[in-house]
């Protein structure tokens, strides 16, 4: 059961909500694996995807997730729609809301955009990545994948390696893992980690071996070439030699450690090919789990909406949201 109308980030989820998403995803995964179990439980519901930032993978995963549940899935086609003619995000959201969409999935290059949309529509908003802030569905699929192998999060050591400063995946994972009792160590070049991230409960190191030592989970992050142009590291060759993970380095982790990566991987840069395709790698499993987790989220959000339909609650996102902000604002 989910508390709120939207799924905007892991930061606002309780451990209970995270676990209920994981348990629902377990059931959903069976539907993907077994054609006989597939059922169109949500066939009267409508979902639209708004991808202001390109991501074929994530969009496809949401689309398939919607289809497996029986919901009608539409893509706004941001690149070709009126958004290109300068329509504001709020106006776009309100228009789609009037058309009766139940779920809006938004991916945007700017932080806080999912919150902005959620504040202005009655539909349930799923954040598919906002700026450098959060990517909750990715973190939930990572957590689900970890859960399948480890069955427990308590005292697991998770090492996240790469561009931490610009990674919404890292941030959402830190929020989730800490809530579930795991230990998180982040590692990467000093120019790609903001020391303040310690306030989220993660440990920071620039020593790769120290980060990997006795880790139960190793998570590589994609390194973006633009960062090099921004002067944050000299070049990919140097990056992969100092921060790339390979078979020898994986030996520092526990023997039964698992390897994750949100994809797409730069082979030979953040991870070497032998470990990407090696036994510890769950990178392909993550893709399937991504669909299952998104099915779970869609299902739980709709379940929540059904309940409100019965009690005839009209969502007024903005009011309560703004109210409780005022309390906090006052430094008094």
């Amino acid at each position, binding site marked *: 059961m989910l508390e709120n109308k939207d799924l905007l980030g892991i930061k606002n989820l309780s451990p209970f909500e995270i676990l209920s998403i994981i348990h629902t995803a377990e059931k959903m995964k069976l539907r993907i694996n077994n054609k006989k179990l597939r059922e169109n439980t949500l066939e009267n519901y409508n979902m639209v995807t708004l991808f202001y930032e390109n991501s074929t993978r994530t969009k496809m995963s949401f689309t398939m997730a919607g289809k497996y549940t029986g919901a009608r899935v539409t893509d706004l086609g941001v690149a070709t729609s009126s958004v290109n003619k300068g329509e504001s*995000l709020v106006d776009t959201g309100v228009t789609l809301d009037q058309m009766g969409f139940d779920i809006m999935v938004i991916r945007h290059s700017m*932080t806080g955009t999912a919150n*902005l949309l959620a504040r202005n529509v009655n539909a349930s908003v799923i954040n598919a990545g906002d700026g450098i*802030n959060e990517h909750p569905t990715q973190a939930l699929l990572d957590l689900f994948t970890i859960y399948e192998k480890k069955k427990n999060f308590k005292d697991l050591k998770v090492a996240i390696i790469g561009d931490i400063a610009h990674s919404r995946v890292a941030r959402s994972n830190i929020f989730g893992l800490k809530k579930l009792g795991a230990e998180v160590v982040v590692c990467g070049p000093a120019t790609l980690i903001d020391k303040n991230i310690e306030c989220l409960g993660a440990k920071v190191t620039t020593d790769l071996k120290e980060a990997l030592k006795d880790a139960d989970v190793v998570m590589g992050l994609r390194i973006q070439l633009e960062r090099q142009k921004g002067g944050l590291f000299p070049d990919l060759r140097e990056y992969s030699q100092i921060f790339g993970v390979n078979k020898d380095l994986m030996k520092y982790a526990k023997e039964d450690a698992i390897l994750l990566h949100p994809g797409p991987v730069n082979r030979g840069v953040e991870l070497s090919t032998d470990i990407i395709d090696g036994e510890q790698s769950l990178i392909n499993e993550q893709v399937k789990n991504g669909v299952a987790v998104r099915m779970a989220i869609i299902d739980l959000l709709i379940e929540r909406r059904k309940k409100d339909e019965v009690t005839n609650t009209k969502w007024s996102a903005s009011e309560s949201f703004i109210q409780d902000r005022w309390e906090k604002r006052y430094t008094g």
Partner: protein
Amino acid sequence: MAAAKGGFTTICCMPNTNPVVDNEILVEYIKMKAEREAVVNVLPIGSITKGQKGEELSNIGLMAQAGICAISEDGKSVENAGLLKKAMKYASMFNLPVFSHCEDMSLVGGGVMNAGEMAQRIGMKGISADSEEVIVARDIILARSTGVKLHICHISTEGSVQLIREAKLRGEKVTAEVCPHHFSLTDEAVEGYDANTKMNPPLRAKKDVESIKKALKDNIIEIIATDHAPHHIDEKNCEYDKAAFGIVGLETALALGITHLVEEDIISPLELIEKMSTNPAKLLGIDKGSLEVGKVADITIVDPNEEYLIDANSFVSKSKNTPFNGHKVKGKVKYTIVAGKIVVDNGELMD
């Protein structure tokens, strides 16, 4: 009009308008328009470089003759230190103060709020304190070597306070100002991604707010100013990264001063009056800011005990971009008198 409602009888207007105020003709135009339409006194400030492009000096001398009260590149800093130094030397010839907006763009990067724990928690790109402080330090050094009267606008960080404190201890001619939002709010206000909390400099961390309050108490900061920047709701009800920087301040400044400084015993009522009228008048070299026989009757009468909730919809200003809507404050402007004429009567603007 918003100024009168907020109890201001004289305001300075920054040159970063469209077009940029960089020659005497525009200065004359502002004065003419103000005389015809404004209910309070308006003192124009000229830009430092033509078009604020940072390439060549504005007509500083001709603008001085036309009546500007200072020069400033507000909205940004003059990037080229050599050019700024020349401007300072040139301006001192006319006894014009230089008002510095301190911001090194190469350090700001794409930041939209204070860099720190809060930015980390909510996943926003930060504006580091050093982006302000390196320019504060640079301008203090250049003012020392040119002898110009330097005024640092809207300081927001603990480091800036320290730099100004040290310069004052050395006996240098530097003054500093702070905006009400920088002593009333911290960066925690940004948490809900409400773009009304987006301003430049950004709302800072608690330690910065503490040190600014202390600097107000020690009179290291002798002026409170608004950095009034009206914006349409469409520029604020949008993506935080896209939203305009800026906050309206004229109609809330005095109440925030009373609420957060006087009521909290940081400064006395008299000191607040000094920081909002006597000291600014002294900096600008105008014969105002005191209540004496024979002086111009620019007077504001305030009820310091009236408590109310700030209501942006009641602003005279067309723009409502304030993070203080619903904020409980004490202190209401009852009468504003400009040159003997009552322009605000019992809290209401006169026609």
